[in-house]
């Protein structure tokens, strides 16, 4: 038993799993690779026209040789137009996979969206991204959704000049048949927009000639090239120093108000989230444990995991003798328990916790939590 929970598998077992997986993933791939899919198949209706994206019961699984990993396991939240939604969680909790599902950039064929919908608001109509074929998706990426990656050095190609890399994006998504000069003008305009003073000079530079903060600005410029409606920022400041981080956060805030787009901000730094986000989603082991406005989450955290996460981060100006640390570790993603995923690490367990995974409970109109402590009582048991 001890060995099994460690994820140890015999070669034969592994072969059997991989064979089964291939059957499943082949079926999904076949579905995806059909040509000339009619638009009616992926056309859908937004639940609320004021939302830019709606994730509805999204399940993204990875079919690995060790078994099926439920990376995202029933995630529901929305990103309203013009707002910033922060997604917090430890590494491996599925926050990046959620954003990659929206971009359809999952590692296929292993990674598959097996259930649920991601509704993308395109103004007049709405598409369900999970069913959208690749050719159409190419059009959506960059134009409607774009992504800022964590490591600016790996997101830029080291052998091409900055200008060329930006031009490429604009040319690829261009619908007005811009001339070469117009494309260059737009690139320089973008570089100026993200606060690069020497934009003509940077146009001709290679990525290695820029510092980390400047590189991140270039990556942001690239993401903004086609005025996307939704910007996914996947840990955009994790690799940067605090002073540079402050600059980049300032920039993102300014750009958001200038372009009126929505930002989905993924990070594990609670301080950054508090500063940037209007709404916060806390994820744990592939599920949302708590969501609400920034005030809800930071001033009245309800889920024991959120409370633990806040307590384990040292805060400047608040001296504590010992930091709170959440005991134990994240459960094995291959065989998740059938009760609350956090039960084994939770210090506030109640009797019902042994039952099924808790469903979502509303504490207020905006504040939702998945925990039995609040079942039907409206948050009377405060810890």
């Amino acid at each position: 038993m001890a060995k099994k929970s460690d994820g140890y598998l015999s070669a034969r077992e592994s072969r059997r799993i991989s064979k089964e997986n291939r059957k499943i993933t082949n079926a999904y791939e076949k579905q995806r690779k059909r040509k000339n899919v009619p638009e009616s198949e992926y056309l859908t209706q937004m639940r609320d026209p004021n939302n830019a994206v709606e994730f509805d019961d999204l399940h993204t699984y990875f079919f690995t040789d060790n078994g099926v990993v439920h990376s995202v396991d029933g995630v529901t939240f929305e990103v309203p137009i013009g707002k910033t939604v922060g997604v917090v969680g430890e590494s491996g909790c599925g926050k990046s996979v959620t954003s990659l599902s929206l971009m359809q950039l999952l590692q296929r064929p292993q990674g598959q969206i097996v259930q649920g919908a991601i509704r993308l608001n395109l103004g007049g109509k709405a598409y369900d991204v999970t069913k959208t074929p690749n050719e159409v998706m190419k059009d959506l990426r960059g134009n409607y959704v774009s992504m800022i990656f964590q490591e600016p050095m790996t997101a830029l190609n080291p052998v091409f000049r900055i200008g060329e890399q930006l031009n490429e994006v604009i040319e690829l998504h261009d619908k007005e048949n811009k001339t070469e000069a117009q494309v260059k003008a737009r690139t320089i305009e973008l570089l100026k927009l993200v606060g690069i003073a020497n934009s003509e000079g940077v146009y001709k530079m290679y990525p290695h000639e820029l510092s980390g903060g400047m590189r991140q600005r270039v990556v942001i410029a690239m993401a903004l090239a086609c005025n996307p409606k939704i910007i996914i920022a996947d840990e955009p400041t994790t690799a940067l120093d605090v002073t540079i981080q402050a600059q980049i956060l300032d920039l993102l805030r300014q750009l958001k108000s200038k372009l009126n787009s929505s930002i989905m901000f993924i990070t594990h730094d609670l301080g950054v989230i508090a500063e940037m986000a209007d709404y916060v989603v806390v994820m744990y082991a592939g599920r949302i444990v708590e969501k609400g406005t920034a005030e809800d989450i930071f001033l009245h955290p309800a889920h024991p995991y959120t409370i633990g996460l806040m307590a384990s981060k040292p805060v400047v100006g608040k001296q504590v003798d010992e930091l709170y640390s959440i005991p134990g570790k994240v459960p094995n993603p291959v065989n998740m328990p059938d009760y609350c995923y956090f039960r084994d690490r939770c210090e506030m367990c109640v009797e019902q916790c042994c039952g099924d995974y808790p469903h979502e409970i509303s504490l207020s109109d905006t504040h939702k939590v998945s925990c039995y402590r609040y079942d039907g009582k409206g948050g009377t048991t405060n810890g």
Partner: protein
Amino acid sequence: MADEIKTSDNLLEVRNLVKYFPIKGGFFGRTVGHVKAVDGVSFHIRRGTTMGLVGESGCGKSTIGRTILRLQDKTAGEVLFNGVDIFALSREELRKMRPKIQIIFQDPYSSLSPRLPIGEIIGEAVREHGIVPNSELNDYITDVMRKCGLQEYHKDRYPHEFSGGQRQRICIARALALKPDFILCDEPVSALDVSIQAQIINLLRELQKDMGLTYLFISHDLSVVEHISDTVGVMYLGNMVEFAETEKIFSHPLHPYTEALFSAIPVPDPNYKMDRIVLEGSIPSPANPPSGCKFHTRCRKCMEVCKYAAPEWTEVEPGHFCACHLHNSAEQNARAEKTMNEARKATKATPTKEAANG
């Protein structure tokens, strides 16, 4: 004499440490310049306390750490450990000294050999240095592993079987097994998740309490540094700009750079009113640092004198050191003004030089 030094308060003293890296260029690989990674840094760490070292990346924090351990040579200056100059030791003496000074690296994924089981990783140096007799080795390792929160059955496993937090525990156990006096922690928690970070920080503090260890804690995460350190040194571009007790430096920072750095810390409270000083631009190249005060290009309180004269390292209040013209004495100001006037004259004579330095 030797006894007297041993009982002194400071376990580690660094005096005017300088470390330049040569830049090789040209056809014959001649040295064409120097990267001034550490340019005259002095500080001291009292026995049983923790000093935090903060600054942006590229400011020379890690270089200081490596030079203190004599993992690389110095260019000038002195490093006194227990009153003994580390760079004056012979090979044999240095080898005896090594177990006393240990290091925990940033990345627990690359600092453990993938081909050795955990017991061997921790025990190798213990056997090599003869810390305990061979007959007790096994029990000793088990004991050290327990202290660091590892189980005995982990001994036969390999690093890839462990998570990031567990690996960092292994690194700590490896350092601890040699019964060190001093441990250099080079960003030990930056690669870890928040909840795991808390576990490792608590472990480090517990060990310090139990065994009276002394730490030099290098990190760019200021909230972690504030939590763990007794004193804090702030570095900028190879120089230390401020050094004081943690409470003092966080409650009223003197140097403009420290102020800006501390104001950039994100606070996890959405209603918190930000009074942020955003530093423009990025850190200049240490190969060609600005003249005068190195921070003057980004400083919002920059004065004329800052552009020409480097500020002196002064004890502004007891135990609170700072290098800034704003906090100099009248005597130092006079000296700085003199340097400025001389420098101005020189640049007037050769205006091209100023452009090159600019």
